[in-house]
């Protein structure tokens, strides 16, 4: 009995380990190539770690390429999109969760429909629309497009979090003397922090790594985000793998930091104890 339980535990851990190895191996390879000196890249064959490691790619990327600009642009675009989407999705999700209004069914259906089209189909019309408004080649334009595309899904996400919070709580707050909005802000919103964190994280990563629209709407380095910027390491005749990978590693940092920051809320069940469970 005890041995079989032990075996099961070991098998369980091994399965998880296997998954983690497969999932993280590309990241490891990214790191490995980013510290491999150019002269060893093709000469050493396939090795798990180069015989000599270097940070020269990082130095180059930070000091001599346009990467800092890309990075800053991406941070602005992804950050603004995440914040804008989360605010809009919180309000819309709350409305869908708590209020009954006319055309609610149709609004939900429309939001679902927007999620059905392949984005490629929409690139041309969106370019056509944004161009006379001067929103191509601009970070604002990107933020608007990303926000529009992420709001529906984020709204459904937030709605499900609001649905999980008992209605009694804001009714109690309203009887205690709060308006519906104050009850939302002071009672419901703090309890939705895990949901808000999840939405922020989801939208931030989506916007951070988006390539299609960034590529189509942005020309030139000044407003390029880093996925577009990564392509500048590909020239007609060669690919600068070392620098590209170094840039990739650097681009991972904000996403990791972001999740480190919000992971506390992602795992924490804040509503425990509110009502009899």
């Amino acid at each position, binding site marked *: 009995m005890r041995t079989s339980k032990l075996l099961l535990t070991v098998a369980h851990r091994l399965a998880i380990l296997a998954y983690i190895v497969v999932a993280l191996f590309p990241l490891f390879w990214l790191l490995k190539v980013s510290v491999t000196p150019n002269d060893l890249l093709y000469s050493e064959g396939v090795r798990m770690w180069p015989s000599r490691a270097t940070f020269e790619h990082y130095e180059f990327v930070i000091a001599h390429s346009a990467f800092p600009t890309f990075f800053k642009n991406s941070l602005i675009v992804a950050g603004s999109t995440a914040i804008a989407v989360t605010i809009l999705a919180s309000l819309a999700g709350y409305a869908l969760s708590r209020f009954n209004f006319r055309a609610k069914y149709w609004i939900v259906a429309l939001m679902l429909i927007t999620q059905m089209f392949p984005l490629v189909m929409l690139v041309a019309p969106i370019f056509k629309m944004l161009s006379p408004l001067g929103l191509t080649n601009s970070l604002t334009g990107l933020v608007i497009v990303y926000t529009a595309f992420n709001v529906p899904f984020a709204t459904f996400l937030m709605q499900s979090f609001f649905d999980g919070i*008992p209605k009694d709580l804001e*009714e109690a707050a309203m009887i205690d003397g709060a308006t519906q909005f104050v009850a939302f802000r002071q009672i419901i919103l703090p309890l939705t922090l895990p949901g808000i964190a999840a939405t922020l994280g989801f939208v931030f990563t989506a916007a951070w790594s988006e390539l299609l629209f960034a590529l189509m709407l942005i020309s030139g380095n000044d407003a390029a985000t880093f996925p577009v910027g990564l392509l500048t390491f590909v020239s007609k005749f060669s690919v600068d793998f070392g620098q590209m990978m170094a840039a990739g590693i650097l681009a991972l940092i904000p996403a990791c930091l972001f999740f480190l920051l919000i992971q506390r809320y992602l795992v924490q069940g804040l509503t425990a104890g509110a009502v009899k469970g």
Partner: protein
Amino acid sequence: MASIDIHGIRKSFGTFPVLHGVDLTIRDGEFIVLVGPSGCGKSTLLRMIAGLEDVTAGEIRIDGKRVNDLAPKDRDIAMVFQSYALYPHMSVADNMSYSLRLRRSTKEKIASAVGNAASKLGLDPLLERRPRALSGGQRQRVAMGRAIVRQPKAFLFDEPLSNLDARLREQMRAEIKKLHGDLRATSIYVTHDQIEAMTLADRIVAMHAGVVQQVGTPLDLYDRPANLFVAGFIGSPGMNFFEGRYVASGEGAELQLANGATLPLGKRLGIESGSVATLGIRPEHVVIADGGALEAKVDLIEPTGFGIIMHVTIHDIPMKIFTLDRAMLNPGPNVRVDLPRDKLHLFGTEGTRVD
């Protein structure tokens, strides 16, 4: 504190009506219990008084002032929810003071109000805790504390004890009664538990299918239920009913049962001879006596410790007897019983009381 007047209140959800015109006047300081089975509209009525549901038709006045269109926050009432609805991210003290903080009361006033309520409810050692660190009974107390810090015009209770175990429910019931004795606050209490209704109420409002069936003191409802619904709902075990045909004969009258047997009623009623009527008698009023007029076949014996509930059949009709006589633990296959005439309840064709 305030009086509450409810006049011609109706409520429909969509096209589905749940309240069919309720009239009720609640005096200042009175403890009113709305009681009825689930779905009878009692909680809806309470939520309409609180302002959590719109009023479809009719008028609600608190302290003489029409409140139909006032937001809950402007009605100056407090409510205790069945789920407690404590704010999970706030300490007990913050839960209790939230209403005062919203009203921008001074720090000193808040501290003294919370302190008073906490000592009344025995919450002093728990003030810094979060709700999740409290037991069910403690959460219930905090919910009550949150209601009393504010000294509102009225307290509304929505099945506040339903989530507690039996022992705790008994204890909290007594505490609520004591609290009402101290504060003399106008209170409306919704429950489906008739024991809570009987023990707590100054007056009970019995409801069924969106209609008020009877309003009266607990003993009014127990002694003279206005109709079959109230008769069957109040009392445990429930009242026994014999349905039959009312026949006036000579000076007296009798009830003719389906199998042809008759039960003498002892007096004539103001209804037509030959009409359908129902006779009711409470299990605790049936008398077991050797010379009894009726024979009862014993089906089942349920000892409760305090007394014994006997399931018997009289004239093919199942009924219950409650007795304190321990000899009835082994009664034999049949017992003789009497139905004392002064304990009979008589209901006419429509189910309303006729005696």
